[in-house]
């Protein structure tokens, strides 16, 4: 069966994909030019409906408010207008990261294997970190590229064991280096489970749920027999 890219692009642009398909489709934008063009066509098909919206007053200090925040998100990689050739390498980079991670685990004979591994990508599809969740209140995170954390903010790792439970904190990070996490007692992690890092106020989210921007996210792959 041939893939109907235009139909998928419509569903993506209308926000009607499920979360897993949407994350994958978002990541594919930087690696698959045919998909990116299909999404561009779909956006432009519906653009006139956006142009129909009445203009609303713009806060006088809008640009100042935005420029004051420009240092808060990972910007270096996203900001480089690198050649398209480099961008097409991104899925390969993600695969290499996953592979390296697998090899790393295999070589440490004394450690048990993680139940799931998730490669967390930023909005641009760039791999940022890897979470290995061993279940039974033990998980580990490693970073594969630098993330700038502004003063007064701290990274927090989350997972979504089920829609009913909602996002659960796996822990706060002191640095962007490898860290062990001690999550609460949760159901055994499953394939496709969402993991993400958000930027929260120092000391962690005040509400116990993610409140800040998502720095990177990814879905878990079960490590059975890998």
């Amino acid at each position, binding site marked *: 069966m041939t893939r109907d890219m235009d139909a998928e692009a419509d569903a993506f642009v209308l926000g009607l994909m499920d979360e897993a398909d949407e994350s994958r489709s978002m990541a594919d*934008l930087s690696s698959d030019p045919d998909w990116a063009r299909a*999404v561009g066509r779909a956006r432009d098909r519906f653009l006139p*409906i956006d142009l129909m919206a*009445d203009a609303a007053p713009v806060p006088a200090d*809008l640009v100042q408010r935005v420029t004051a925040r*420009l240092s808060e998100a990972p*910007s270096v990689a996203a900001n480089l*207008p690198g050649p398209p050739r480099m961008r097409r390498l991104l899925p390969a980079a993600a695969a290499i990261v996953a592979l390296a991670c697998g090899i790393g685990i295999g070589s440490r004979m004394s450690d048990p294997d993680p139940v799931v591994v998730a490669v967390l990508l930023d909005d641009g599809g760039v791999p940022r970190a890897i979470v290995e969740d061993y279940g039974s209140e033990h998980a580990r995170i490693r970073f594969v590229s630098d993330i700038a954390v502004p003063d007064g903010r701290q990274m927090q790792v989350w997972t979504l064991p089920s829609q009913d439970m909602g996002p659960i904190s796996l822990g706060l990070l002191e640095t962007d280096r490898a860290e062990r996490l001690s999550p609460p007692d949760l159901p055994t992690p499953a394939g496709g489970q969402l993991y993400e890092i958000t930027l929260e106020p120092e000391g962690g989210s005040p509400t116990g749920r993610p409140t800040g921007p998502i720095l990177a996210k990814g879905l878990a792959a079960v490590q059975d027999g890998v």
Partner: protein
Amino acid sequence: MADALASCARGNQDGLHRIVEAEGGRLMGIAQRMLQRRDLAEEAVQDALVQIWHKSGQFRAGEGSARGWIFAILRNRCLNILRDGKRLSTLDDAALLAMQDARHAAAVEGLDRLDAVALRHCLEGLDDTARRSILLAYVGGYSHGEIAALQKVPLGTCKSWIRRGLDALRRCLS
């Protein structure tokens, strides 16, 4: 707009000023139509502009218009706000209800003001149910499940209305 994005990608904040000058009112309008609250719309537009700045280097000519790319980032931010239940939990029931009613109305009204003749003609050619469903999704940011509930049909029926409607729309526009 593509030039303004290129400026942002070079780290020149003048690009950001140009985007806000040319499209700021429209960005606020789209966000307000989808979120129906001034405070949430301002937050969405600010968040979107921060993302536009950071992702500007990823915009490529030939993959749709710069304006479509910019609006897509804002729409995405608005959808995230709508789907973050906790984000809306600060509103009391009456405010939430008023927001949902206004959002519903804004989504399905005003098609006669659509300037793009071809799109308007093709949307008007769809079944009422398919047209409403597509507009609820695009303008109001409703999910399949919410649209099925609003239209009082099972989820599967709603999905097939939308899929068939979108297929017909593409055929009509091509």
